[in-house]
């Protein structure tokens, strides 16, 4: 019995080392994966970077037939859809954060609402796109006729509307947990001075959680920038730059993600394909930076 245990313990030592190595390798694998993604994007963008240079970014014309590639329409389209979506979503995500974080943090109603909001993020983007195409687009068309713009139905505004709904859960769920973390002595201090609930929220809770809530907005923005399917189905996919602001908002457009989705499999020559990949590279950098800043703020916030 005793010797058996001794023998066993020696063979176990070997496995212990192997196991630790495997854990390490898996961890290194993640590094390699991300490095590989970055390198692939850069290498495959090279033909476009070489032949188009930095002016690619503000070239206003995207015309593969003429072999002219400018990213400006997509940069504008991406920023426009994302920021409109963000502006629409912020009041809602703040309201949810305050309601579930402060007014009603416990109980079945609170749980039900929280779970429902998380389900918003669970519905696949393709389903929002499909629904938007058949239900929202006709409604928007009627609306556009009323306000006197060209009644496309599809377009930047429609995409933003759907995007706004889709990104709310990201800012909201973070906001809820941050507001719940506000130390109650702070709040009680304000109540003791005779502050109303609104005043406590405005002058204690909001200042305390400001940076964290901003991080939540950044995470939402990261989602919006990279969102592909719903936008591709609703934005109208035109690479022309709109002449007026009205047209830019209500007319059709294109985002970086949607133009890649639409044209990648059609791109029949090197520079065309490479220009699309360069868009992907830009998208990668922008979303990664925004996400990392957001995460950094959250880590700082939760470590206090």
């Amino acid at each position: 019995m005793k010797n058996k245990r001794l023998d066993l313990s020696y063979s176990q030592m070997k496995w212990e080392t192997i196991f630790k190595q495997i854990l390490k390798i898996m961890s290194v694998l993640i590094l390699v994966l991300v490095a590989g993604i970055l390198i692939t994007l850069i290498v495959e963008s090279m033909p476009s970077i070489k032949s188009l240079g930095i002016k690619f970014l503000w070239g206003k014309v995207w015309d593969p037939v003429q072999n002219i590639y400018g990213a400006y329409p997509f940069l504008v389209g991406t920023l426009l859809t994302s920021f409109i979506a963000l502006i629409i979503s912020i009041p809602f995500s703040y309201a949810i954060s305050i309601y579930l974080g402060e007014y009603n943090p416990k109980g079945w109603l609170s749980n039900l609402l929280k779970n429902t909001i998380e389900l918003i993020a669970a519905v696949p983007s393709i389903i929002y796109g499909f629904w938007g195409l058949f239900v929202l687009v006709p409604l928007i068309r009627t609306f556009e006729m009323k306000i006197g713009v060209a009644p496309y139905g599809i377009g930047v505004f429609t995409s933003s509307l759907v995007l706004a709904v889709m990104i709310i859960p990201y800012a909201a769920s973070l906001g809820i947990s941050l507001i719940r973390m506000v130390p109650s002595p702070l709040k009680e201090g304000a109540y003791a001075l005779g502050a109303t609930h609104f005043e406590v929220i405005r002058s204690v809770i909001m200042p305390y959680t400001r940076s964290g809530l901003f991080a939540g907005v950044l995470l939402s923005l990261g989602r919006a920038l990279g969102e592909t399917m719903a936008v591709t189905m609703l934005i109208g996919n035109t690479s022309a730059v709109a002449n007026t602001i009205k047209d830019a908002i209500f007319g059709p457009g294109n985002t970086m993600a949607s133009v890649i989705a639409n044209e990648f499999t059609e791109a029949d020559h090197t520079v065309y394909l490479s220009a699309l990949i360069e868009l992907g590279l830009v998208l990668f950098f922008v979303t990664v930076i925004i996400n990392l800043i957001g995460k950094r703020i959250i880590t700082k916030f939760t470590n206090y």
Partner: protein
Amino acid sequence: MEHTVVSATNFNAWFGDNHVVKDVTIGIEKNQVIAVMGPSGCGKTTFLRCINRMHELIPGATAKGSLKLYDDEVYTMNPIYVRYKIGMVFQRPNPFPNLSIYDNVIAGYKLNGLKVPKAELDNIVQKSLTSAALWNEVKDSLHKKGTFLSGGQQQRLCIARAIAMEPEVILFDEPTSALDPISTSSVEQLFHELKTNYTLIIVTHNMQQAARVSDKTAFFYLGELVEFDNTKQMFTAPSDVRTQNYITGRFS
């Protein structure tokens, strides 16, 4: 005949640059209860965790010097084998929440993948639980989860788990500090019964407990072993002024 089980010679331990156990030399004899006491941060728990090589599991922790189990150098032995031979009971009862009471007792066999016939396992479980004075309380609910027991029962289950491996020495790291007085006394009673078969080394910050349960007491202060003597001698006529100060409560 007295026989030395665990002996340390000029033993040192560090956390990074922090020298927490300094030049400790001690010989612990078989079938005795040894209390290790001292103010918090004196290195007593670290020394205990060095004996079964748990100390080195903390990142940055190192140890140097001679530490022997009988005639074998612990730090050249296989650490897994060291831990088979030297059991440990922790400050807070920590039965495995995913295992039943029965499986908790034989966890050392089960988790190590040691193949033991069922009848022998039954025997080990009954013997260990009996030795831990828990058999009568749990014999009808052996297949319930260990986490349903009270704190004191859980701690005795952890003792049974250590006994089941038939170790030479059992280390106790402040085993009653998380328990209520009644559970504490039931665990303390156990010490007297266990020493017929095992050598017990108990870290405690409770002087009364040291006086109650131990044959010999070691007093640690600032990482040094100040004094090691018969408990009675130590508490009536300590030879070092620091021990004297501690016992009389002049510092804590």
